[in-house]
């Protein structure tokens, strides 16, 4: 088995927040914790795009590098997991993570202390015994051990969010881009460097309008 990956197709994501809800329900995550979230760029404007984001299970994970207790580990499938028994709630992983994946429960508690860090597990549970109640309580359900993929991706209604082995995910996305009709040209010379003439024309048009 290779490398587990998430991929979010910005062309397809419709910001339904279904993945967020599915994740919360599947793992019964604590209040105030969002293992997954959907972020929308240029909301409400033509051309708006949404992206669903969670832990990206980095190869060189910054959270692993800065954790004072070294509580993180990486599985053979490239999933970044952590041991909540060793987490001290210092928040360093949250400082370091580019994606804002680590979350801390009981936010405004006494003296604003953080609880144990919680994050996306790629539905792979944690170091507790697979399928045990303790694992479910701390890390949520272990779908990977049941031969299933993360629920957020599996239930995505537009299949914008894909999860699984990097090779398979890449193949699905490649086929999709090819079939998108106009999509293929997105990667070509015209897409990257064409369109300039039209842009120039419009600029001159605006200029003329401004003068008249």
């Amino acid at each position, binding site marked *: 088995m290779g490398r587990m990956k998430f991929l979010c197709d910005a062309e397809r994501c419709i910001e339904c927040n279904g993945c967020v809800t599915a994740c919360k329900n599947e793992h019964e995550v604590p209040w105030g914790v969002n293992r997954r979230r959907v972020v929308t760029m240029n909301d409400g404007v033509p051309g708006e795009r949404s992206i669903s984001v969670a832990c990206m299970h980095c190869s060189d994970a910054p959270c692993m590098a800065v954790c004072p207790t070294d509580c993180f580990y990486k599985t053979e499938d490239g999933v970044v997991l952590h041991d909540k028994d060793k987490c001290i709630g210092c928040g360093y992983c949250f400082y370091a993570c580019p994606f804002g994946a680590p979350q801390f429960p009981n936010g405004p508690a006494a003296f604003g202390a953080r609880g144990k860090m919680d994050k996306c597990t790629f539905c792979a549970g944690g170091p507790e*015994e697979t399928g045990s109640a303790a694992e479910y309580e701390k890390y949520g359900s272990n779908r990977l051990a*049941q031969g299933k993929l993360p629920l957020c991706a599996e239930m995505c209604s537009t299949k914008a969010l894909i999860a699984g082995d990097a090779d398979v995910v890449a193949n699905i996305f490649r086929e999709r881009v090819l079939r998108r009709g106009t999509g293929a040209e997105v990667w070509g010379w015209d897409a990257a460097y064409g369109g300039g003439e039209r842009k120039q024309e419009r600029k001159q048009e605006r200029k003329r309008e401004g003068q008249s």
Partner: protein
Amino acid sequence: MSTGKLKSIALATLAGAALLGLSACSEVPQVTVYEQGQYRGKTDARPWEGGEFKGDRAAWEKALKERSRGQNEYNRIQ
């Protein structure tokens, strides 16, 4: 306490501190490839070991691959 005794205590402390400091040079690997037994304190069953697959790695990989392919709706239309 005599000065000689103090000096020997100080030397022992110095040696201890040097030893402790040097042990930091033994680089702790941030294991990317998960190796069972090598990474103590964080023992975790691999996904195919516990639960339904009972150690049958090939079956687990097959099941997961099927599921991954299932995400491609073009496969389902055909």
